[in-house]
């Protein structure tokens, strides 16, 4: 057991896999010599050498193409796309190539690869370096989608992602890098597609992901002071989606809230609300409510960014208002 930052947990988790399996290798822009622009791959070049830890040109299409081709021919690449916003410059590789090749070839081709990427806002980086785009990936069949909220989950879910025979998009939240948590010693391997109930409460279900998880937990504490006991679910993965945990919680509480960092339209929250609206309708005691960033690009100034990304206060207010009404 050791206390690690989320940032350290990334390098720790990658190292665990590099040590275990000689077919794993990792590459991306500035990840080797410099240890990554977020310092989340520090020490890997030194331990594993330049054959397995590689700096690339600024060529995101080539990076993901290379990952795909390597995965098709016996390796298990981990590719970094520095900011998740940059997935847009190599989106074809993600959605048309990597996601579809197994299906199109009737299962002839496997693509066991992981695309790690820095996701999310809160760093005042502005509209092109702050997006939460996990819902983009969720909308495309053939991709697994993971977004851990704690250092231990980073390690365990990263191991599960590397060992999975499917392509996984692994979203690391930039505003969680500095957060700390205990990471159990020894080999750590988690299971994709399992949500965690991180708080139990009978009055409502709050589903959250990544940076929104600590905020949802904090909101639940405040709400408890106001007499509302919330269950908080950390989704951890969007695909596979742990619908069982969601449905069984909502069946108990009768009220669903989702807290999303992505902009309003077509987020994972809409998917969760819709699943509940179809499969759990008769258990609902009131409207299902999504708390999201409004449908705007992210502004740069601190006060503006803080105004749009769901805050503890906003979560508290929306839940309290809805349950009182």
């Amino acid at each position, binding site marked *: 057991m050791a206390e690690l930052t989320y940032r350290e947990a990334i390098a720790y988790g990658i190292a665990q896999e590099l040590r275990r399996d000689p077919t794993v*290798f990792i590459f991306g822009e500035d990840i080797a010599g410099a240890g990554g622009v977020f310092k989340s791959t520090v020490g890997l070049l030194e331990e594993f050498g330049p*054959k397995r830890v590689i700096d*690339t*040109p600024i*060529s*995101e*299409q*080539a*990076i*993901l*193409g*290379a*990952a*795909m*081709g*390597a*995965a*098709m*021919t*016996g*390796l298990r*690449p981990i590719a970094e796309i520095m900011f998740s916003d940059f997935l847009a410059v190599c989106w*074809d*590789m993600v959605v*048309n*190539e990597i996601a579809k*090749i*197994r*299906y*199109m*070839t*009737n*299962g*002839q*081709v*496997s693509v*066991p690869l992981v695309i790690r990427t820095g996701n999310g806002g809160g760093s005042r980086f502005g509209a092109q370096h702050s997006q939460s785009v996990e819902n983009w990936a969720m909308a495309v*069949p*053939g991709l697994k989608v993971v977004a851990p909220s704690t250092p231990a989950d980073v390690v365990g879910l990263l191991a599960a992602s590397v060992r*999975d*025979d*499917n392509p996984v998009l692994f979203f690391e939240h930039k505003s969680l890098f500095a957060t700390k948590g205990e990471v159990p010693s020894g080999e750590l391997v988690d299971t994709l*597609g*399992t949500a965690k109930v991180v708080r139990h409460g009978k009055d409502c279900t709050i589903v959250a992901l990544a940076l929104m998880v600590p905020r949802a937990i904090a909101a639940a504490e405040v709400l408890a002071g106001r007499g509302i006991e919330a269950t908080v679910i950390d989704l951890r993965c969007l*695909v*596979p*989606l*742990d*619908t*069982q945990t969601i449905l069984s919680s909502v069946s108990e509480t009768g009220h669903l809230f989702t807290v999303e960092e992505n902009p309003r339209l077509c987020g994972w929250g809409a998917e969760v609300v819709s699943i509940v609206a179809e499969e759990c309708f008769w258990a609902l005691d009131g409207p299902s409510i999504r708390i999201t960033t409004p449908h705007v690009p992210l502004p740069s100034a601190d006060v503006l960014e803080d105004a749009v990304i769901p805050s503890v206060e906003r979560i508290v207010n929306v839940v309290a208002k809805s349950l009182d009404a």
Partner: protein
Amino acid sequence: MQIPHEYGAHEARLPEPVDPNMINAPIPLGTRLDLYRLQQQMRQFEKRAYDLFLQNLVKGTSHLSIGMEAIAAGVGQAMRADDYTFATYRGHAHTLARGVPMGPVLAELLGRSNGLLAGKGGSMHLTSVERGVMGSYAIIGAQLCIACGSAWSAQFRGTDQITVAFMGDGATNIGAFHEALNFAAVFRLPVVFVCENNLYMEYTSIFDVTAVEHPAADRASAYGLDRIVVDGNDADAVYMAASSAISKARQGGGPSLIEATTYRHGGHSRADPGKYRPDGEVAAWLDRDPIPMYHQRLLTLGVSEADLDQVQRDVADEVEAATVFAKGGAPPQADTALTDVWADGGSSWRN
């Protein structure tokens, strides 16, 4: 505004004459007979595919390479069984070139359950991992990046497998081309990029939209590579160029970019009558059809007409058998649409 050209008014581009020295290329006669057979297979297969299209049996679109066979044959013949091919939507010939049997390929065009991809991929996505055909890709340029990956993998694993990636002339103007070429050069990857310059994209002349005369070769230096242009209608020329690039790659010498000039006899896809081509151009290129030329060369080299006839008849039988196989295939079961999204064979996105 200055207009760089009038559309459709471009000059006819006529083929260069055959290189008379090519007959002396150091290629064993057996290899040449294989090249002849490969070209026959491609040609007869695609003619049959076209017939079946006219009978409304081919589903979706398909892109023939009739007239361009010498490239797929020459490159395919120069490869080793464990090498990797990455093809495009115009990939029938490149697939056959690796020895993939015709029956399943044709059945795939017909959307049958006995198709190479059980009807899930179609003509544009032919793949046979068993034969090193690592897929056919229908988004221009993507395959070039993916090919870097299999080449990197071979380098990493310490095998001496090489990768060949095909592209059209039009693909040289897309970003993925540039990224792949630089990436391959930087990491000295064992990959050979082959640009089939058939002078047209879909319906637009490549010369109307490209800053240089040779869309691939004139860019090789931007990646520190040699400028290579070969006669894509001469299987021997292609075979020689491919062999040398492949052996360079196999020995750790890094990537090559080969531009092979050629012409497609038909339209871009089954929907296209090819009317945008200037007068005289098609006729001139039909005269330079790679197959009769190669036939003639083999006669000159002393092969008998009877032996060549035999090859043609063998291939015709093969095509006939493939047709029976394909037509006899059942349509896929509807529920197979829900398999093989994931490695566990299924498509479930929830637990």
